[in-house]
Structures are given as C-alpha cells and as structure tokens.
C-alpha cells in the first residue's frame, strides 16, 4: 500500500498541504478531485517523492520515508512508484518507441513482448516510430502511459492526463486504465473530469486549500456530504 500520514508542506510561507493522510491500494483507482490551486499536483509530486513534505511520513509498501529528512539524502525507489504528468515530458530527440525503451537499459525478449502487447492495447502501431513533434498530444499521452507501464510500476500516479484529450481519447484512456488496474497496479489519479472519475474510480478524495475535505467511495460524487464538495460538483454540473 502507498500511504501518506499527516503530510504537510509550505511553499513561500503558504500552507499548500495541511496534514494530509491517505492510502492507495494495489489494484484500485483512487481519484483526487478539487478546484485549481487546491494542492492536487503538489500532493502527487510529494507522494512520488519528487518534492519532500515538511513533515509526515510516506510509506511505499515496505519502505518508510519520514520527514523532515535528516541531512542524509535518500534515493526513492523509482520506478516502483512512477508518475505520468499533465505535461508529458516525452524526450524530444527520441522517437516514441525509443522514449518507451530508454529507461529499460538493455532490451530483452521479455521487454519486446511486453511492448508489443502494450502497443496493441494502446493502439500505437501507426505512430510509435515517429518523433514527438510529429504526433498529436493524445498519441504522446499514450506513449507516456506506456513508458510508465513498461517499468512494471506497483503504483502509478497520473496528473490530469486527460486534460488535452477529446472525448474519444478519454474513453480510450478510461478502458486502458481499467486494464492497468486489473493487473494489480495501484493508481492515484488527479482529474477535473467528474464523469471520468465516476466511471473509473474505486475511491475518491476531494481536496481544497491543501486539505482533504471528503473521502470515500465513488458515491461521494453523487451524494456528497460536505457543503464545499456539493458546491464544487454543482458548478461542474452547471458548466457541463
């Protein structure tokens, strides 16, 4: 299990994360929703140990990371936990295939078979040998997800990966996420798409002002208890 206990973080004197505790189970999708500036991306970066919290504890299965850190710098066990960002960070000098294979080092027959399988699942055959600037955002999105999956992560953190996709592409990502989940990967996903969250999530966390306002099953999206969540969802409903 990926667990955060009482993590807090200040940036420029402002509380961005306040005493947050949550857990992500393997084989389940946990979705974080909330307004812009709520601290969603900071939370993801903190859980992936790209940024350290000021206090609290983060556990990646058997590995415990306590904060504040001592002088001794530790090395997070990436890619056991890996991240796909809103901006995809696909390396521009490599084709999508090279992007996917680069982190693996020496390519084995097992890697090749795994890639073939994922290329089929994500329908990437037509563009996998193109350079990033020759592909669409949706195609790069899929490459970023496949790059992460090729590393066999146990937890996959996804930051607004649907933000630049059209409805068809979102549907395609939705079905692919279900496949990933069925393989036992724990997924923590930030999204602003409530419908998308409803279809794919096992658990939902609503955060605002760096705090968890409501947490529960997917039903909280239909009948939220907290007033703030009700207001947020009603605005989203009105807009959509």
């Amino acid at each position: 299990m990926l667990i955060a206990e009482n993590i807090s973080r200040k940036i420029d004197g402002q509380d961005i994360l306040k005493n947050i505790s949550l857990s992500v189970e393997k084989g389940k999708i946990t979705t974080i929703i909330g307004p812009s500036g709520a601290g969603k991306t900071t939370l993801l970066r903190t859980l992936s140990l790209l940024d350290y919290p000021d206090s609290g504890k983060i556990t990646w299965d058997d590995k415990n990371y306590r904060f504040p850190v001592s002088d001794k710098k530790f090395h997070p066990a990436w890619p056991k936990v890996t991240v796909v960002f809103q901006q995809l960070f696909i390396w521009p000098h490599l084709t999508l295939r090279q992007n996917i294979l680069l982190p693996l080092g020496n390519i084995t027959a097992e890697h090749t078979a795994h890639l073939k399988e994922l290329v089929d699942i994500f329908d990437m055959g037509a563009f996998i040998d193109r350079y990033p600037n020759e592909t669409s955002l949706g195609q790069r999105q899929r490459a970023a997800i496949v790059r992460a999956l090729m590393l066999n992560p146990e937890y996959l953190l996804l930051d607004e990966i649907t933000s630049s996709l059209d409805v068809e592409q979102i549907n395609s990502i939705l079905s692919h996420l279900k496949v990933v989940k069925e393989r036992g990967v724990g997924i923590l996903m930030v999204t602003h798409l409530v419908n998308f969250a409803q279809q794919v999530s096992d658990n939902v966390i609503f955060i605002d002002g760096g705090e968890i306002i409501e947490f529960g099953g997917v039903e909280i999206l239909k009948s939220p208890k907290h007033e703030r969540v009700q207001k947020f969802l009603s605005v989203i409903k009105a807009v959509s």
Partner: protein
Amino acid sequence: MLATIFQIIVDYHQALIQGLLVTLSLCLIIWSVGLVLGNTLGFFGAKYPAEIGKPSRVFAFILSGVPILVLLFWLNYPLQDMLRVFVSPFLTAVVAISLVNIFAVAEIVRTALIEFPKQYIVAGQVCGMEAKEIFQKIQFPIIFRQILPGLLTTQVNMLQLTLFASLISVAEIFRVAQDINSVIYKPVEIYTALALFFLAICLPLNGLALWLKRRYTRNLSEK
C-alpha cells in the same frame, strides 16, 4: 573574367596559398580557443550563475558594444604602447577574435543549459534512471542538438571576422589579395575570386548549420 581570375590564381598561387594558410591557421586557432574556453565558460556560467554567469554576461554585453575593428586596433596599438610590449599582429588578431568567439560560444552554451526543460530530467528520475544516465542519454544529446547550429553559424562569422586582421598587417588571404591588386590593379577579378573563396567555405558550413537545425532541433515545448 573567369579566364583572368584563373590566370591570377596561377600567377600568384604561392602568395595566395601562403595567405590562405595564414587565414586557415588563424581560423583554426580562433575556433579551437573559442570552442574549448567558450564551452567551459558557458558550462560554469550556468552552474555558478552569480559568481561566473553574471560577470560573463556583463563582459559579453560590453564586448558586444565594441566593434571588432576598434578592439583589434586598440589591442594592437594603444594597449601595447601603454604596456611597452610588442605582440605580433597575428597573435593580437588571435586574442581579439578569440575573445569575441569565447563569449559568443559561452552565451549559446549557458543559455541552452539554463533553459533546458527540467521536466525531462524529472521524467528520467521517475523512470528510475541514474543521474549519470540522464545526463548522457537525455540532457547532453538534447542540448548538443540545440546548440550545434548556433555554434556552426558563429564559427562561420569568426572566419569572416579574420578579414579584419589584414588591417593590422596580418598577411592573411585578404591582405594578399590587396597586395596583388596594388601590383596588377584588377580589383573586380581579384575581389570576385576572394568572394568565391569565402562562398566556397562559408556556404557549405551555413548550409550544414541549417540542415542540422532542421534535422535535429525539435520543438521542446509540449504543444
């Protein structure tokens, strides 16, 4: 006219070859010094922005306001007079043009390093890549491709700047052409031949820079 040009080349081939060798050696020294010291200065300028980067930028800014001819003359006459030393015009030209080259190269390298999108490093980290591997396989190739066309264009400019060395009596190809012209007075043919010579060297280099830019410089944004 072509026949006359050819005849001049045949008649004065020894002097022309001599001038060409001076131009090429001047150029090779300026390129080597500029690339080695410029890359070093650019690298440390990016690594230590306050201590090295800022002073280097200030010096580059001041240098950009001084025409190369003024710099060349100032180094060759008043400075040597003040210091009561004699430095050969060839060496003075090397120092003056290399200075310009060093700071031009340093700016290209420093900017590329500073503006390198950090997210590419983060992407490597979360994929479990080591820092050394990230530098070798991601950072260096991307930066190299970004700076290569700019470096080539700068070196072509440096080759063209070597012409100014003739004005402090360095017997490079332009000076030789002037001397030949003072003897036979055929300016059209002589300077056309000189232009063809520079075109033959500069055009392929500029073409290569353009090709590299098109081939390897990819859009680094995520759009």
